[in-house]
């Protein structure tokens, strides 16, 4: 047994995983239409390559990545592009995002080898990163950071340990759990590919102890290999937080404002390992994912392999629909997931769950005043004082909130979860973070304005100097001419005088 460490705080929310953990992953029928947003990742949106009316095949590039941080988007099935327009994004605001709408033809016909399958063990680290990037693989845990960039981190920093995050500490979610149970071999294969790409020494497949079947499957798939081992950690939320998993397994803390790479650790999600294996070994881009469809307000909770771009309404319908007492539909888990404005938004690469909660499950009550019980302080895994931060945020003292550690907050929600007064602490912090960004943007804008004004003044000044110089030059030239004329005249006169005297 490996020596494990403990991170402070954390909570034990009720798991609710039993509804789906023993049911195998179902493949849903292809919806009539898919709504594939070009922005499904952190970074710049992808740029569509196809036009309305184009026939596309499964796996064909729909939009290419642009910029240093971006990811391409591929067609999840074969069909016709019927529209490229603005559709609601899977975000609480429901704001529109550029979306490629595909009318599916039901044939689900693959493009001829989108990328040629290759023996991963013969690829160089750079080639792996290129393939992963080209396949549009992003962090599948919900962060959706383009994976290829993380693979290149190994070049800048010496990575000793790769952690594969199988924490899945959010209640209800079992998509990683099922993936580990059913596709352990591919996960281990993907892990080995990542390991080679970042040239790390060892990888740990880190799984919470409430997933015994997943642990067994992974152990079997790993075999006796020394470089990849399964590490079982206690079930405690937020074990799946990158910073806290690093601490739990290695005992190291990621320095404030830094990355795991700063302490020689890289963390990838189990689902990402699976996607990497698909991309590199089989040449398949990321066009579907496993989603936990659950919650007390869902008729038939289960894990479903969903094509990217399928609407939540399609997925929910496949799972028997919502019950009458559905109060809130969440994308992701209930701790950190986001409320969906309605079901007409698509599943994207970062969608780990579609959770329909009843009012009883949400258990939101009227907010009472803070009684300073300190439950939030004890629950905070980052060592913050949520009660003081919230009080300062409420008073509008943004600087004080930052001093208290706003930027060290990972928004895990432990504080709000335990608060007996039901104070929406995370909401306060998100508000403060938003204000901070707005303020920084305003500051940046001011500086930018200042710079432009200074530039303009400088330009005007230069023009004035140039004008004056030109004028002076002209004046000097004119004078020189005059002088030359006078000189000529004088010379002529002198010559005349000389002639006369001679």
């Amino acid at each position, binding site marked *: 047994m490996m020596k494990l460490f403990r991170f402070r705080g954390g909570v034990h929310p009720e798991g609710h995983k039993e509804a789906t953990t023993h049911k195998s992953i179902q493949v849903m029928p292809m919806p009539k239409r898919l709504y594939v947003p070009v922005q499904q990742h952190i970074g710049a949106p992808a740029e569509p390559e196809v036009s309305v009316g184009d026939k596309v095949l499964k796996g064909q590039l729909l939009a290419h990545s642009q910029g240093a941080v971006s990811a391409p988007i591929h067609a999840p099935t074969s069909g016709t592009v019927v529209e490229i327009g603005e559709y609601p994004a899977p975000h609480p605001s429901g704001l529109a995002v550029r979306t490629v709408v595909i009318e599916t033809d039901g044939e689900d016909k693959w493009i001829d080898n989108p990328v040629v399958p290759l023996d991963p063990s013969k690829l160089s680290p750079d080639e792996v990163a290129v393939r992963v990037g080209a396949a549009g693989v992003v962090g599948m845990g919900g962060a959706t950071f383009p994976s290829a960039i993380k693979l290149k981190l190994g070049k800048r920093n010496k990575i000793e340990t790769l952690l594969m995050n199988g924490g899945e500490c959010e209640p209800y979610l079992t998509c990683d759990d099922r993936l580990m149970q059913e596709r352990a071999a591919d996960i281990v294969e993907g892990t080995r590919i990542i390991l080679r790409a970042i040239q790390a020494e060892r990888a740990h497949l880190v799984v919470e102890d409430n997933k015994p079947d997943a642990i067994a499957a992974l152990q079997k798939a790993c075999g006796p290999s020394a470089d990849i081992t399964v590490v079982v950690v206690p079930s405690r939320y937020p074990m799946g937080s990158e910073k806290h998993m690093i601490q739990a397994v290695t005992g190291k803390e990621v320095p404030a404002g*830094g990355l795991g790479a*700063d302490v020689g650790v890289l963390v990838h999600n189990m689902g990402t390992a699976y996607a990497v294996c698909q991309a590199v070994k089989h040449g398949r881009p990321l066009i579907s994912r496993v989603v936990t469809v659950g919650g007390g307000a869902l008729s038939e909770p289960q894990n479903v392999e969903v094509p990217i771009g399928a609407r939540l309404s399609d997925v929910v319908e496949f799972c028997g629909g919502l019950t009458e007492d559905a109060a809130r539909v969440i994308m992701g888990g209930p701790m950190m997931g986001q409320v969906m404005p309605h079901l007409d938004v698509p599943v994207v690469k970062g969608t780990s769950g579609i959770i329909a909660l009843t009012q009883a499950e949400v258990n939101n009550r009227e907010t009472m005043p803070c009684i300073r019980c300190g439950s939030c302080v004890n629950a*905070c895994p980052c060592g913050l004082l949520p*009660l003081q931060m919230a009080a300062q945020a409420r008073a509008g003292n943004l600087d004080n909130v930052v001093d208290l550690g706003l930027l*060290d907050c990972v928004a895990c929600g432990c504080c709000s979860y335990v608060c007996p007064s039901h104070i929406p602490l995370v*909401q306060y912090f998100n508000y403060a973070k938003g204000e901070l960004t707005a303020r920084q943007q305003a500051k940046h804008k001011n500086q930018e304005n200042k710079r432009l004004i200074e530039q303009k003044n400088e330009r005007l000044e230069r023009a004035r100097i140039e004008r004056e110089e030109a004028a002076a030059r002209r004046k000097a030239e004119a004078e020189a001419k005059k002088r030359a004329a006078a000189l000529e005249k004088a010379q002529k006169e002198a010559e005349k005088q000389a002639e006369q005297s001679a």
Partner: protein
Amino acid sequence: MSNASLISGPHTHAPTSVPYVMRQVIYALLPALLFGIVLFGLPSLWLVMVSVATGLASEALSLYLFKRPIKPFLNDGSVVLTSLLIAMTLPPWAPWWIAVLGVSFAVIIGKHLFGGLGQNVFNPAMLARVMLLVAFPIEMTTWITPAPIFSSAAPSFVDTFIITFGGYIPNADAFTGATPLGHLKTELTLHHSVSEILADYSYFNSILGWNSGSLGETSAILVLLGGIYLIFRRIISWHIPVAILATSFVLATVFSIIDPARYANGFYHVLNGGAMLVAFFIATDPVTAPSTPRGQIMFGIGIGIIEYVIRTWGSFPEGVGFAVLLMNALTPLIDHYIRPRIYGRTRSGKPLPSSQG
């Protein structure tokens, strides 16, 4: 934020609420409270009833006057808890107006003038107790020797009303007696040694609670059980009670070793004078105590020291309330300076060094 649907997570919540917390504390108090009522008879029951009624009335009045929502706050259980705690720290046969004055003072001035639930700097129950102790020393130090309910020692049914509502104890000498700490204080001033004074003192009675004392704080064991229940339920943490009890125990032990004739031992201090009630139920009031574990330990040590000093060298043997109030005043300071270490930072707040050069 204008859009109501922009709700941050978490979208689930632990099964807790302010009324739940208050209810748990009330449950934990009940054994000691019921024991007190049994031990000191019906007058103490009348006193408890007057306290709770006054508490609810003054809370409703305050909420109305300060224009705060009445229903959620009147139902949150906090005022019932405050009223019960005040009743438990009163002499069991105190007249009705002592309870009315104390509870209304605690609720209106101690709680609502500061801004209501969660805003008060001082523990309202201790504020009331100290105010009463200073303003009405006779009523507040008229202690009753145990006269269990329905026993032959108990006053007649009619007399119980005369005691509480008439403010007169018929045949007072038969009922009154000193508390262990008061007795110790008085006898020490008469230059008797501790061993003489405590010759017929029974630790067993103190543990059980078969002593003169405040209505609900005589039984160390029942208060302790209630406190352990609260720790088990994670309503309170062990830091404050352990720090208080350990500090006063260690201090008392050290002094009694130095001069056993003048100073009573640690057990005597921990078992008497409401030390247990204060440690588990009063000082742990979250509103007026620090919110970090390290701050709570400092707070507890402070109370332990001041409590011992006041009892031993001050003129209020039952003066633990002063210790709580003094430390309440220091709580904002403690909370300002004692903070947990932030993940990824040193104690001074600087980012931890990166292992990559």
